[in-house]
């Protein structure tokens, strides 16, 4: 079908702003920016309907580089700003760009509550496991024992697992991807955009200045097959260079098995079901960590639940249908009144 000349197709480039991108050369953020533009073009979301909201940090510069509406707010508060925006303007496509420090440390509270309310926003968490903009302090996702400028003797903080946190508050869409895994990233972003309700996406993102190689195990050609497992709905969990390994659910635990060894067949493997109402299995998947386990990428959970802004609007409509819309006169003269002559 020919495209109508009145409505020119938007290309990824159309979603880029005229501002110079100021991330460090080699930063994983570039890849995320470019997949985001592709995703919006794939969905043909009008530029004026898109709003990117961010907090503070390298990732939070994201809105400046998108030729859409954007709000670079204050540290950690993007989910709250986005919630206010979305519940007043439900028709907008609202995105939150945040990082591990912004979203999980200073803004942890807002992240939790946006997710549990199921506001229809897409939260993209750039996880580089370090504070970049402030030049290299330990972050809430930095591994235990990590030496940084603020932890010269090694971090004694137990790290948070972003997806486990999101599942703990019953996020309706939970996914993970990797900055350099561009095709996969675009697919995940598109699925997030299509989901009605809060979409929470963690992206493994390399900070080549302050935490270079943090995800080498997941991105290096020779290592990634053993350390990454791609989740596919309805498919058994298999990984390895020749797809020879898998994940088995046994005695309430997950374990790595090799097909053909000790009588293990594909039938023994856990089959991924992203639509499972109970988030417990997804939680187990989210807790799979390198080096004990391969780390899953893809969609962990995708379930339907009414979104917050819809419920708010429905309540308002219901009252207005029942009582009629209020006017200035009805407002001022409500309650007990009396007249003085």
């Amino acid at each position: 079908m020919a495209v109508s000349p009145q409505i020119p197709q938007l290309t990824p480039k159309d979603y880029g702003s005229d501002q110079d991108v100021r991330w460090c050369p080699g930063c994983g953020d570039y890849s995320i920016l470019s997949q985001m533009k592709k995703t919006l073009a794939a969905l043909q979301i009008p530029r004026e309907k898109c709003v990117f909201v961010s907090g503070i940090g390298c990732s939070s510069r994201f809105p400046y580089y998108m030729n859409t509406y954007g709000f670079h707010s204050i540290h950690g508060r993007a989910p709250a700003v986005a919630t206010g925006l979305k519940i007043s303007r439900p028709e907008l496509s609202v995105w939150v760009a945040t990082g591990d420090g912004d979203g999980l440390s200073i803004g942890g509270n807002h992240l939790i509550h946006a997710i549990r309310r199921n506001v229809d926003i897409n939260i993209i968490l750039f996880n580089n496991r370090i504070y970049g903009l402030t030049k290299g302090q330990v972050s809430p996702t930095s591994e235990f024992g990590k030496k940084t400028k603020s932890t010269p003797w090694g971090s004694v903080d137990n790290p948070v697992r972003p997806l486990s946190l999101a599942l703990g508050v019953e996020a309706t869409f939970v996914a993970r991807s990797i900055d350099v895994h561009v095709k996969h990233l675009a697919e995940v972003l598109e699925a997030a955009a299509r989901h009605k309700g809060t979409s929470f996406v963690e992206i493994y993102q390399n900070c080549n200045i302050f935490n270079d190689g943090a995800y080498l195990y997941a991105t290096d050609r020779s290592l990634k097959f053993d350390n990454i497992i791609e989740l596919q709905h309805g498919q058994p969990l298999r990984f390895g260079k020749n797809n020879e390994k898998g994940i088995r659910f046994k005695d309430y635990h997950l374990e790595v098995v090799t097909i053909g060894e000790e009588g293990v067949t594909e039938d023994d493997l856990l089959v991924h079901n992203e639509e499972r109402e109970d988030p417990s299995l997804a939680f187990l998947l989210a807790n799979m960590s390198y080096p004990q386990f391969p780390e899953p990428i893809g969609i962990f959970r995708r379930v339907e639940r009414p979104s917050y802004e819809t419920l708010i609007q429905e309540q308002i409509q219901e009252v207005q249908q029942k009582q009629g819309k209020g006017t200035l006169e009805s407002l001022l003269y409500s309650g007990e009144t009396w007249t003085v002559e």
Partner: protein
Amino acid sequence: MTSTASTDVAKIKKQIEEITRATVRFAGDSGDGMQLVGDQFTTSSVIFGNDVATLPDYPAEIRAPAGSLAGVSGFQIHFGGTEIYTPGDKVDALFAMNPAAMKVNLGDLEKGGLLVVNKDAFTKENLEKAAYESNPLEDGRLKEYKVLAIPITTLNREAVEGLGLDRKAMDRCKNFFTLGLAFWLYDRPLEPTLNWLQQKFAKKPDILEANTRSLKAGYHFGETSELIVNAYKVHKAKIAPGTYRKVNGNEATAIGLIAASLLSGKPLFYGSYPITPASDILHYLSEKKEYGVITFQAEDEIAAVCGAIGAAFGGALGTTGTSGPGMALKTEGIGLAVMTELPLVIINVQRGGPSTGLPTKTEQADLFQAILGRNGECPVPVLASATPADCFHMAVEACRIALQFMTPVILLTDGYIANGAEPWRIPALEELPPIDVPYWTQTGSNGFKPYLRNERLARPWAVPGTPGLEHRIGGLEKQHITGNVSYDPQNHEYMVRLRDEKVNGIQEDIPLVEVNGGDSGELLVVGWGGTYGAIMTAVEQLQEENKPVSSIHLRYLNPFPKNLGSILSRFKKILVPELNLGQLRYVLRSKYLVDAAGFNKVQGKPFQVNEIKQAILDALEAE
């Protein structure tokens, strides 16, 4: 009033005494329903045609131990046939439901005043809880008062017997017995309360019946019992013609926000986190869905203000309300709204501070916080309501300024006016002009410039969804006109000065302040916020005594009205009464180089008229 004092009330003859005004206080346990009784007495009084002012006074604990001094809750109402500006200093009648309530409040009862107590509550246990070594009803120490010791619990139980209620439920009605008695004493109509009961308990017929019986039993007890003192007749007040309703400050604030939303055609968004004494604004607004109001009970104070900022970016009238500690948390968000130049209204119902302070008590100590309390050069317009009903007008004003100037605006009220009620003359619709602030839609030939300004220095409000106006804003310094991020030193200073000039320019759009009394002379009393009633009454009373005193009351605190400086310069002495250590005085001294003196009280309580009068007399005498 007579000075007859007796505990043997049987001998007192019943007669009707005509009075112009009276102050009554109801006191009991915080679970005794004293606030409700006070509220009903107020409604009945305004409908009868009196002017009123009220002062609820309740403890921070919801249910402190029954009968304890810490758990006493009170409600004071001053009503009369003349204009009433304050809830009254001393009370003419005290209704005390137990010994603790009597003990806490007795000091405020006028000598010769009426003391009504529930005799049944003066048990050994309750007397001990109130630290009375002997029963004050029997040991003669109340001889300065007219005491009516009535077995309210017993009489009330008799009244509600046979309805199948248990003891606890029966006793819960005894506040209505007390109310009924008070209605009889002051010749108030029962109908408003009966109507209220009908609505409130429509689905609980037994409770409705019990409370109705209690109310009537109390009333009839006054009417038929021989055991009663004078009843009073308070004439209707000469009030300006119009239609009235009773409002407290929090209600009036909420109504003002909705009115501003209707007047501007912008949907109202109210983000809030529960906090005393501001929560009632949230409660009121959550009910008003027919006006399209969106209320967002956020996870914290920060999310409440940030949600409102997000909503404002989307084109809503973004508002948030809180009290002092919550203001502290919202500070960074307010700075963001200053930088992004979005309309936002922040309401601070001030309470005693610092920190958690005195959550249920009033204070005016957040003025510095409002004017100055942010990082960077961060000017924010500050308004303050003078009375409960004035909260309506100032809420509309705060929204108007926020929308017309694209700026956050802080509205200060306080616990005293937030919970205090008065009759409000409902403004005619034509007294409320529309707030005409259209969204920006023009793209311009060189593209959209989000920081281009109009004659008020307000930037355009371009909301998401408008094609061609896509733009980015944020907390980083903006380049003049383009709104792009800019670290340029000259641009930064320019923008700092521009934001300051914009807020100062609001002076052109606010009313001049009016002097009450001669507009030059010996002494000018300068007040702001909720102290209006006490200051006004004190000044008028002294003016009647021909004392050389005038007063002004400031409702616009940043910027000040244009004529303030010249008014100040025309008086020899300036006295600034405040419920803080002198914050307005500090600002006036620094801004106008005037030798203003302060009269300051920080007790969590409002000023009494006599205190202000004395301070004025002292100031007049001072060299």
